[in-house]
């Protein structure tokens, strides 16, 4: 990675990593009586590691001039590896917290292993660690290919990737120690949030700078979605995390919002994180890798347009459906519900557009597990968006809210849609990136496909059952007109489903391990083939680029 940087970029990397090391040291000193001090040491160690990496390669020869006529894919490769590492970590903790609900003793009497701390390690691990790294990696790849322009420089994509992972490390390590804002999906404290803002702005600038220099007259749909993802996540992140720290030496901060405003801001954020992180970003992925792998044109350009604008416009209003029947004024709930219902149409239009793109390629779907991953992802995208709109209806929500149905819904989206489209895309991308004709073992891709599908189905069915039973138990009255079941009764009734869910999760986790192995072996294959100098089977990239770009 370092040898791809010019000498001045290496110098810049050292300066920036040095500055961050100084910040880490300052945090460690000022916050020595607080948990922020521990984070200071982590920042310090992390940046010293980066400095060591750059320094040892500092004297390597500069990259050749002709690098500018080739796409810059090193950060994408690193992003893929990081995504898979986080996938295994995040899903491992997912299985653990699932098991905790069936066997509460799995905390081993340790504070760090309590449910409240492990759960965000799971959610942040899979969403930000796995999903985020996969989005950064694929977006940089798609951006260059569909713009026919190289990334503007070598330094900034590394800054984004490594900086983003520093954020993820701060998040996860903080949860173990008990550092949290207690806002779902926005748990990291103020200093980690500020850092992410910087990283994210640089990410956005890479996008703009590359698009500006594109050789294509039009901007491809995938880039609309990636751009929406980057831009809106920045807005959401900044607004929801507005907070005042107790002092510079304290990890704790207090939100600028309180009461129902806080709840509304949080769910405006939370739901749009689903929309723009977990939907828009991955739609970007789908719009590139699915047609590419299928070898088919997108079914309808016009449908893409109304889906895109429908999704971006409508999602913004939908957050309040998370707060039905609460202190939130009813008119806000009405807006959330009605916009959620209209939202179904553009959502299904996207899913339909993807599936109709496969017309003429269904035989490939049958034979190629990679493409099948993407096809199933589109189906789950359709299913979970339908379910989401359905659950946004107040009457339905009065049954589903606070139950495991919500968890089932989330995982139909997270496992069935987000993870499947990512695995499909990575299986397509990995051989291109490491210049192999195919993945190390297509048979293992097939194995992974079935593990993932079975796991998802077990998971989702278990949670549907348990959620609906829970919801019904909580609202059943006996002849005396009092509640028929206690909360404990409903917990006892949940146990078999919690065990089933753990099993489903294990399947899915096993699939991720298989995928990591397969990808790792492909990378090793390429290392061995490197000497032979075999060339890419990817696109005619370099020829299309104007040198010096």
């Amino acid at each position, binding site marked *: 990675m370092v040898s791809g940087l010019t000498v001045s970029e290496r110098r810049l990397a050292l300066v920036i990593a040095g500055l961050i090391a100084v910040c880490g040291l300052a945090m460690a000193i000022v916050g020595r009586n607080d948990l922020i001090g521990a984070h200071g040491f982590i920042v310090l160690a992390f940046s010293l590691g980066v400095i060591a990496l750059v320094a040892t390669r500092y004297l390597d020869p500069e990259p050749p001039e002709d690098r500018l006529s080739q796409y810059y894919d090193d950060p994408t490769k690193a992003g893929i590896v990081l995504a898979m590492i986080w996938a295994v970590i995040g899903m491992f903790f997912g299985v653990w917290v699932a098991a905790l609900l069936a066997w509460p003793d799995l905390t081993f009497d340790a504070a760090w292993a309590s449910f409240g701390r492990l759960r965000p390690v799971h959610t942040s691990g899979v969403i930000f660690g796995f999903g985020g790294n996969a989005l950064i990696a694929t977006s940089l790849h798609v951006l260059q290919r569909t713009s026919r322009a190289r990334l503007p420089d070598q330094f900034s994509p590394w800054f984004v990737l490594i900086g983003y992972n520093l954020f993820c490390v701060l998040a996860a390590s903080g949860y173990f120690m008990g550092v949290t804002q207690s806002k779902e999906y926005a748990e990291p404290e103020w200093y980690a949030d500020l850092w992410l803002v910087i990283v994210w702005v640089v990410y956005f600038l890479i996008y703009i700078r590359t698009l500006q220099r594109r050789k294509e007259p039009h901007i491809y749909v995938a880039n609309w979605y990636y751009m929406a993802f980057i831009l809106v996540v920045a807005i959401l992140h900044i607004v929801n995390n507005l907070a005042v720290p107790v002092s510079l030496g304290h990890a704790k901060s207090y939100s600028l919002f309180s009461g129902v405003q806080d709840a509304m801001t949080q769910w405006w954020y939370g739901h749009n994180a689903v929309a723009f992180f977990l939907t828009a970003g991955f739609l970007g992925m789908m719009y590139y890798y699915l047609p590419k792998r299928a070898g088919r044109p997108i079914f309808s*350009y016009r449908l893409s347009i109304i889906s895109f604008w429908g999704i971006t416009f409508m999602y913004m209003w939908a957050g309040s459906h998370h707060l039905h029947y609460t202190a939130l004024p009813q008119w806000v709930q009405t807006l959330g519900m009605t916009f959620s219902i*209209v939202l179904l149409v553009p959502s299904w239009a996207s899913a339909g557009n993807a599936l109709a793109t496969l017309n003429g390629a269904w035989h490939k779907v049958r034979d190629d597990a990679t493409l099948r991953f993407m096809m199933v992802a589109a189906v789950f995208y359709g299913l979970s968006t339908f379910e989401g709109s359905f659950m946004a209806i107040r009457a339905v929500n009065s049954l589903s809210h606070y139950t495991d149905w919500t968890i089932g819904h989330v995982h139909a989206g997270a496992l069935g849609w987000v993870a499947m489209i990512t695995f499909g895309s990575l299986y397509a991308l990995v051989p291109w990136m490491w210049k192999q004709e195919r993945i190390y073992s297509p048979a293992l891709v097939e194995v992974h496909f079935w593990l993932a599908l079975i796991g998802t189905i077990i998971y989702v069915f278990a949670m549907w059952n348990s959620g609906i039973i829970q919801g019904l138990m909580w609202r059943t*009255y006996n002849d005396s007109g009092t509640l028929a079941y206690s909360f404990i009764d409903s917990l006892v009734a949940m146990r078999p489903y919690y065990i089933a869910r753990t099993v489903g999760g294990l399947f899915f986790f096993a699939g991720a391990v298989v995928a990591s192995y397969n990808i790792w072996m492909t990378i090793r294959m390429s290392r061995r083939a490197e000497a032979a100098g075999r060339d890419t089977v990817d696109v005619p990239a370099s020829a299309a680029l104007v040198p010096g770009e």
Partner: protein
Amino acid sequence: MGTEHRDPVTGRMTTGHEWNGIEELNTPVPRFVLFFLAVTTLFAIIYWIFMPAWPLFSTYTKGILGFDQREVVTRQVQEAAAARAGWMDKIANKSFAEIAGDEALMRHVRETGPTLFADNCAVCHGVKGTGGPGFPNLTAGAWLWGGDPETIAQTIRAGINSTDGGTRVSQMLAFGRDGILTSDQVNSVAAYVRSLSGQPLNASEQARLPAGKEVFKANCVSCHGENGKGIRDVGAPDLTDPHWIYGGDAQSVYTTIYGGRQGHMPHWQGRLSPADIKLLTLYVGTLGQDGSLGKDGSLGKDASLGKDASLGQDASLAEDASLGKNGTGGGGKP
């Protein structure tokens, strides 16, 4: 860049754009998509007309149904209360003895009690009321404060060592830690205490009995009574029965006497309605009685009556209670 051409599979034209091999068809938006977009939008608009929907500066559009979720929930809560009022009012107004004699009312108690108990009391006393280390068994009839309904109701209302002004105060002194007794004396009196409930003692414990009896006479009888049968006015438990809160094994008894105990039972007045507290009282009385109440209106059995068939099962509970020595009996520790 590509050129517009016809896709052989679908027969549609492409848009003429091409990105790294990806093309797009110029398929018009299918009619049904537009149709559903119109239908859902129409639904939304109609819903806005009927329901509270759009913010105005200081108010919002109320909707022609005049629907307000606060009013609705208030009404529903009132209706539900009215539906229960038939029997709830009787529970609230009648005496315990009258209710206990009314089989119809007791059916409501048995139907409602378990949920109320499981939602409020089970965390400490267990779903069936059988307690655990640090938390007394409510089914055994071995009452600390007394098993008559008024006493139980008062315990629930005011709690024990709670933050309520009228709380019951329960103090088992820390004889060892506070230096009232030497460690040796504590060992002796512990052996004596264990002999009271007829537990098998080893030789060294046997040897300590006379000394232990002396210590007991001098320090313990004021609360636990001459014969160790407990004094309910101060909530001091009967030490002669096989029911233990903190465990009857040598280690637990030693720990109790050395470090003292102050069990905490929260107060419930202000959190549960008076009628609910009454209902719980009656329900607690039915625990351990297979659902049938004493005819004399006294709920639960006297400590002296406790030596019945349920005894064996409770003896095993005392063994559970010995878990307390591992420090897992959290709630009961000072």
